[in-house]
C-alpha cells in the first residue's frame, strides 16, 4: 500500500495554534523536511529508467514520508491554490520548480486531467501549507466561471510571455473572475518564461503590469526554468493568504507589492538569463 491514502489519516490543523504550541514544535522541522525532499527528488531524477510521472510520484512519496511521523506538526494553515492558464504556459513546471526546486522539461501528460503539489512555507512564525492544483485543458474555456474556482483560496493566473494568446486569454478570464470572486480570494498574475530571449518575448513586462493594475491584482514575472522569482511568488501568495486570514488580529497592513519589491531587489532582472 502506498502512503498516498494516508492523507486522510493526517490531521490538518487549519486553525491557528496557540503560541505555546508553537514553542513546542521545533521550527526547523520544515526546512529539514524540505531538504530531504530535494535530496529524494534528485535521487529520483538521476535514476535513468524512471519517467517523469514516476519522478513526481517519488517526490510526493518522499515528502509524505518525511512529514508522516509528526502529522500534527505539518502546518498551521492550509490553503488551496489554483493555477489557471492555457496549456504550455508552464503551469506544471512552475509547480515542480516551486516544490522541488528543479526544472522538469518535456511533456507531462496527466491521466485524470488534474494534478496537485503540496508545499509548506514558513511565513514569519507560522507554517503555511499550500496545496497547488492544476487542471488540463483550461484553454477551452473562453472564460473561467465562478463554479470552477469558488473553493480555492488563491488563484495564480499564468501566461507565457512568449505567447500573446495566453496573455489575451488571461485578460478575458480576469474580468470574469473579478466579477465573481469574493474578496477573500488572493489573485496573482504571473508572466512565466521570463528567461526568454528578447526576440521571443511577445508580451512586454509593462503590459502585464498594466493589466494587473487594471484589475488590482499582484503581478510578477517568473521563470520556472531558471527559478527566477518562483519562490518569491509563492511566498507572496502565502503571505497574502495569511494576511487575509489573520489581518484582523495583526496590526499594520501587509502590502504584497512592497514585499515583492523588497525581495526582487536582490534578484537578477528578467531576461538576463538565457
Amino acid at each position, binding site marked *: 500500500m502506498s502512503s498516498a491514502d494516508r*492523507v486522510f489519516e493526517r490531521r490538518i490543523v487549519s486553525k491557528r495554534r496557540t503560541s505555546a504550541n508553537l514553542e513546542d514544535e521545533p521550527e526547523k522541522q520544515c526546512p529539514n523536511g524540505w531538504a530531504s525532499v530535494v535530496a529524494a527528488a534528485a535521487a529520483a531524477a538521476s535514476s535513468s529508467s524512471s519517467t517523469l510521472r514516476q519522478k513526481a510520484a517519488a517526490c510526493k512519496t518522499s515528502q509524505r514520508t518525511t512529514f508522516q511521523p509528526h502529522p500534527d506538526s505539518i502546518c498551521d494553515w492550509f490553503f*488551496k491554490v489554483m493555477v489557471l492558464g492555457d496549456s504550455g504556459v508552464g503551469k506544471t513546471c512552475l509547480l515542480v520548480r516551486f516544490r522541488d526546486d528543479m526544472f522538469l522539461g518535456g511533456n507531462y501528460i496527466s*491521466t*485524470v*486531467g*488534474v494534478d496537485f503539489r503540496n508545499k509548506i512555507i514558513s511565513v514569519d512564525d507560522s507554517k503555511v501549507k499550500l496545496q497547488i492544483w492544476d487542471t488540463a*485543458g483550461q484553454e477551452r474555456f473562453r472564460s473561467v*466561471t*465562478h463554479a470552477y474556482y469558488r473553493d*480555492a483560496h488563491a488563484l495564480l493566473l499564468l501566461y507565457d510571455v512568449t505567447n500573446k494568446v495566453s496573455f489575451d486569454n488571461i485578460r478575458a478570464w480576469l474580468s470574469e473572475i473579478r466579477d465573481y470572486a469574493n474578496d477573500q480570494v488572493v489573485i496573482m498574475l504571473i508572466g512565466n518564461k521570463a528567461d526568454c530571449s528578447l526576440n521571443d518575448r511577445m508580451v512586454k513586462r509593462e503590459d502585464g503590469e498594466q493589466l494587473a493594475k487594471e484589475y488590482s491584482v499582484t503581478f510578477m514575472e517568473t521563470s520556472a526554468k531558471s527559478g527566477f522569482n518562483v519562490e518569491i511568488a509563492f511566498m507572496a501568495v502565502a503571505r497574502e493568504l495569511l494576511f487575509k486570514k489573520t489581518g484582523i488580529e495583526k496590526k499594520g497592513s501587509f502590502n504584497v507589492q512592497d514585499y515583492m519589491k523588497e525581495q526582487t531587489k536582490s534578484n537578477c532582472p528578467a531576461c538576463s538569463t538565457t
Partner: protein
Amino acid sequence: MIQHYSFVLTNAESKWIFGFCRHDPKSETALVVLSYLPWHESFYKLLNCISNLTNSNNSKDLWPFLESVYNSKLPIKGLDLKINSDSGEELFVCQSPIQFQLPSIPENRNLTEYYSAVDCQNMIIIFASMLFERRIIFTSKKLYRLSACVQSANAVLYPMNWQHIFIPVLPQSLIDYLLAPMPYLIGLPHSLFQSLQRNDLGDVVILDADNNTIETPFDDLENLPTDVVSTLRRQLRNKGTLLGDGVSRAFLRALVKLIGGYRDALKFHQGERITFNKEAFIESRSANMQPFLKKMLELQIFQQFIEERLEMLNAGLGFSDEFEMEVCNYHEKSSNRLKHQYKDWTFTMKREGTALFKTVKNAANPTVRNAVKTVKERGKDFRLAYKDIRSKFNAPNKNPRTKIGTHPNSAPNSPSMQKRQSWSHTTASASYRKETANGLQKLTTSQNFKDSSISPLPQINLNLMEDLKEVIFRTCDNDDPRKYTSSWDDSVKSNFIINDDLINSSFGSMPSESPMETKDLIRLDSTSSIDDFDPLNSPTNSHGLVPGVGLSNPLYQYFVPLNKTQLETKNNNDLLNEYGLNFDLLSCTDQPGPSMSTSQPPVPPLPPKPPNFKSNWTKFE
C-alpha cells in the same frame, strides 16, 4: 458474475478516453479496450467477443480479429460494423449508434443500471447538484454500478456536458484527488470510501448507489425552479414511459425549460460573430426562473454549452438535435393555450364581420392595431436578420453553388411593390409562416437570429390577417386578394419548391390549408424572405465546413459532417438525416428502418474521418 465497467482517462487537452473493461471474477485479469468513442454497448459486446475468442479452441483467430477491428473504418451512424474471420465467418457485428439518439432503457445499460439503483428523487438531486457544479462522489461496492451511474449522471445532462474532473472509477493511488477544490464527479469504490476522513473533504455531495442514499450540504434542488422539478418528478415516476428514452427525455425537457431560451438571447450584427447576451437571456425568462438562471450563468457547464452552440452558428453550420427539437415542441405546447384564446377571439371577430373591419380601419381598436404593428415590425426584423446572415454566409463562400430553392436576392417579377401598395399586414404573414411549417423551419438557425432587442413575443401559429381576411375582404370588394396571389405566384413557386418537396417527402401528406393560401403566406414578403434561409440548403454546408465543435466538449467529436462530394449525391432526406432529423422515425408510420437504409445511394466507404484515426480509435494492450 462477469462485470462490465468503464473508466475514463483525461488527457492534456481535457478530452476523454474511455477504458471499457470486462472482468470475470474467476480470472485475475480483465480485458480492456481503450477508445475515444463513448459507445459502451458496442464495446462491451466486442469484449465478449474477444473473450470468446480467447477461450475458444480457435484462439489463433484472436490477433487477426483484433487487427481487423483496429484497422476497420468507423461505420456511418446507424450502419453495421462487421468483422469476419479469414474463413468468412462472421465474428462480430455491431451497429454504430445513431447520432442524437437519447439513451433508452433497457438498451442503454448504464442508464438502466442508474435508474434501477437510484430512485427518481435522488436522481433529481444529483441532476441539480451537477447543474450547480458541486464536488460529487458516487460510491458502490460494484464497479459496474459505479461506472454506470457516473456515466449516466453525465448523460442525462445532454446537451450539456460535465466540464470538470470526471473519474468514473477512482483508483486507490489517486485518492488524494478527492481534495481537489474544483468541481468533480468521482466514482469511489466502497472499500476506499470507508477509509475516508470525511472532515478533510469539505462540502461534497455523496451518493451511495448501493443503498440509494444521498448526502448533500447544499439546497440545490430547492434552488431549481419548482415547476421544472415537479414536472420532472412526475415524468420520471410515470412507469408508463419508463421503457425507451422516457427517462432521458424527461431530463431533456427539464433542461429545455431551463436553458432552451438561450436562442432568444442570441445577438447578431452584420460582419460580427453571433454573440450571446446574458442580460437579455435573464430578462426574457419568467420571474420565477430568473434567480436560477443568474446562477446558471456562473457555471462552466452552461458557458461551454453556449460556446459550443455559438461556434456551430458562427461556422454556418445548421444544427438540429434532440435538444433543439424539444425546444420547438416546448414552444409549441406553451403557445397552445394562447392559440386557443386566439381562436375564440377570431371567431368572435368573424361573426361581427363588418363592424370589426370598420374598427380596424378607423384604428379605434388599439389592441388590434398594435398587434398588427408589432407583428409587422417583427417581420421586418426577421428580414433584416436574415439579410445579415445571408451576407455573412455568402461572404466567405467564394463559389456559391446555385441550388434549386436558393432565392436570388432580386427576383424578377418581384412582388414586393405590389405587396407594399396593397396590404401592409402581409409581412406579418410571412414572418409567421415559419411556425406553420411543422417544426421543420423552426429547426433552422434563422429562428435563432432574432434581435434580442425585440421584446420576445409568444411564438405561436397565428396568422392574424390571414384569419381575418375573410372579414376584411368582405368589405372591400374592389380589392380581391386573389389578384395579388395569382400575379406573382409563379415566381414564388420555383423558389420554394425545395422546401415544399422537403416537407412533403418527409411527412407524406402534409395537412395544409388551400395551396393558394399557403403560397400567400410564404410569398407576400418578397425580398429574400428569411424563410428560405435553411441550413440544409445553405451553401456553406456544401463546403464541408467543420467548425471547431468539440473544443469545449470533453468528448471527441466522432461525428464529422460529410464532405462536399458526398453531400451532392444526397437527396433531401439524407440531408435531413445528416442533421439528425429523421421524420420516418418521428411520424406515426411504422416503417422499419430509417430512410437512410432505403434512400441512401450505396456510397462506398463513408467513414467520417476522425482525427488521428488509428492512434485514437482502439488500442489493445
